[in-house]
Every structure is written in structure tokens, then in C-alpha cells.
């Protein structure tokens, strides 16, 4: 081996993981070549010295700034981009589908009557209407769970978006189906539906966060 190749091989050995021991061919050459020995020895010392150069930790404020920036960016993506709304649309679609199915099985007036019996209140009390409206938001919990599978983090924003979509889609149907209710009670029912949508979608998200899930691939 000539000097140049020995120095290359020596450097390669030096920089290899767990390096520092010269390969046999290099060691044999170094035994008889003072110039190569001096150069590689100097490189070895420098390499060791650089390894002792202490690392530096940034201040914690940098971490806080980075995480703030990331949250801001994610919020922007979730609200201002089409792709950011996709999981919310998916969750809302599931919630609306299931809620409509539920309303066919248990029509709104029937559930209101059941709630009134459970609460043991008068016909004009707002409670049963709020409660029944909120109950029809329950399927959105399933939507929230699916949303969580799509977006493991930042799901609160997506849940609120899904609740909004769910309500916007379902409210006209609910109003049409509750025509016979007096206006104040109709408003209570629709208000219950809106509140239930938000609460149940967040509940679905919370349940999904408690249970370990493997996030779906995008």
C-alpha cells in the first residue's frame, strides 16, 4: 500500500463506528513510515479531541417556541386547507348517517316523550327536549373515534369542525321533523342537538385517546 492509500484507509478506520484500531495493512505500513504514522496519529488525537467537545443544550424557551409554532401551523392547516377538513367531513358523515338511522328507529317525538318520563317533568319543560336533542348527537362519538384514527393529534380542532358540519347538515332535517313542537321547545331540541354534537364528538375523541390505537396510514 502506498502512503496515500494508507492514509485514506487509516482515516476510514478512524471515522468508522467504534474505530480507532488500524487495520492490519495500515499498521504494517505505519511500522516503517514515520510520515504516515505522524499524520494518522495527529488525526487520531484530533478526532478524540473533537469527540470530547461538550454538546450544548438550547434553552427551554426554544422548545416552547417550537411547539407553539407547530400548534399554530397545525391549526392553520386544519382550518384553512381542504385536506385539513377531510377527517372532519368523514367524522361528520358517519355521525349524520348514524344519527339519521337512530331517528328512523326512534323518532324525535318518541325520544322526547321517553326523556320526559325519565325526568318526570311537565309537557312544556325544556329539559326533555334538550336531552333528546343531545342524545341524537351521540353517534358523532363514533365519528370522533374514526377521526382520531385519521388524525392522532390535534383532534380537538377536528372534533369541533366535525360537530359544526354535523349540526349544519342535520339541523334542517331536525327542524323539519320537529314542526309540531312549540318554537321554544323546538329551539331547545335543536340547541340540545348542537351541544350534544360538540360534547359527544369530544367524548369520542377522549375515549379513542384513552384506548391505544394504531393510527391509520395516510
Amino acid at each position, binding site marked *: 500500500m502506498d502512503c496515500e492509500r494508507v*492514509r*485514506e484507509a487509516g*482515516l*476510514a478506520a478512524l*471515522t*468508522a*463506528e467504534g474505530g480507532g484500531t488500524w487495520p492490519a495493512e495500515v499498521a504494517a505500513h505505519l511500522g516503517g513510515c514515520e510520515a504516515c504514522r505522524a*499524520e494518522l496519529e*495527529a*488525526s487520531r*488525537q*484530533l*478526532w478524540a*479531541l*473533537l*469527540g*470530547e*467537545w*461538550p*454538546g*450544548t*443544550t*438550547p*434553552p427551554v424557551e*426554544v*422548545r416552547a*417556541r*417550537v*411547539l407553539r*409554532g*407547530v*400548534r399554530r*401551523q*397545525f391549526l392553520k*392547516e*386544519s382550518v384553512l386547507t381542504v385536506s385539513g377538513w377531510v377527517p372532519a367531513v368523514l367524522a361528520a358523515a358517519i355521525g349524520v348517517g348514524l344519527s339519521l338511522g337512530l331517528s328512523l328507529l326512534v323518532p324525535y317525538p318518541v325520544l322526547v316523550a321517553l326523556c320526559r318520563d325519565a325526568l318526570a317533568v311537565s309537557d312544556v319543560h325544556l329539559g326533555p327536549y334538550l336531552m333528546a336533542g343531545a342524545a341524537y348527537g351521540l353517534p358523532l362519538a363514533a365519528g370522533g373515534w374514526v377521526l382520531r384514527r*385519521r*388524525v*392522532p*393529534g*390535534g383532534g380537538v380542532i377536528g372534533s369541533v369542525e366535525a360537530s359544526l358540519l354535523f349540526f349544519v347538515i342535520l339541523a334542517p332535517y331536525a327542524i323539519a321533523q320537529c314542526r309540531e313542537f312549540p318554537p321554544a321547545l323546538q329551539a331547545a331540541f335543536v340547541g340540545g342537538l348542537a351541544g350534544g354534537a360538540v360534547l359527544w364528538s369530544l367524548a369520542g375523541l377522549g375515549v379513542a385517546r384513552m384506548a391505544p390505537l394504531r*393510527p391509520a*396510514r*395516510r
Partner: protein
Amino acid sequence: MEAVQAGSTGAFQVLYDRHHRALFTFLIRALGDRRAAEDLLQETFLRAFARRAEYRPAAAVRTWLFTIARNLVVDEYRRPGARLTSEGGQTPEAIADPGASPLERAEATELGRRLGAAVRRLPPAQREVLLLSRVAGLDVSEVAEITGTSPGAVRVALHRALRRLGELLGPV
């Protein structure tokens, strides 16, 4: 990384905690200015999050992060009025971690003063290869990927960097 790509800020915190120190050490050694290194560390992670969809699992996450950091350093050097110098940069006290122990500060002062000054006098290509290899602990193939060269070119640059650093430092 899959969770980060899906937008999980919790997973991103883990990513930050795992890589911030190596990246910051690289940045501060490359720039010689603590404030500039802090800004570029922040920018590295924000850019990584913004471009998370471009990440391909074939590459190691740290290689990807160092590629972003290295490109920011290159841009910083090109920027008019850059907050760094090639002749020693800031004093070691300005580089040292304010929260470090007295021993760490002493080491940073003594060792850092000589090494920092010498490293920042290396030509940029040699400096980045040396810092990525030894300070960041990346192997030759990773450094080649980050710098857009071949492993052979990295070895040559490393060889030259060590030789030049030895001349600049004198007996150690």
C-alpha cells in the same frame, strides 16, 4: 414519524426531545453564535413540521433533520449581514450554555475557544463535513446524503479538514 406526519403534536415533542441537542450542538459549532443557533434550531423544527409530508421512511429521521439544518446554515452564510464570522465568531462565553455546570463551562471556555476558532476557519465544505461526522455523530454515508456528495468525497473532505485543523490548532 408516521404520527408526526399525521399531525400529532405529541409525537412531534418526542421528535424534538430526541434530536434537539445534537442539532443545536451542530448549529452552534457551525455558526459560532448562540442566538443564531437558537433561531435556526427553531426554524429547523418548524420547517420539518411544515414539510413532514415530504419525509420518506427510506431516510433516517435524523438525516432528514440534519439536511434541513445544514441547508439553513448554508443560507445563513449566504445571507447579507449574517450573524457570524469565519474568524472565531463569538466568545466562548457567548456560545456556552448559560445553564451548564462550572466544569462544562470551563471545558467550553478552554477547549471550545481553541476548537471553535479553528473549526470556523475551515473552508465551509470541510467544516460541515467535520461537524456532521464528529460533532453530530453521523456516518459517512449519512453525511454524503446530507451534503449531496459521495461517501468518497466526504472522506476526502474529512481528511483535509483534519489535516487543516491540525495546522490551525498546532500541538494539542
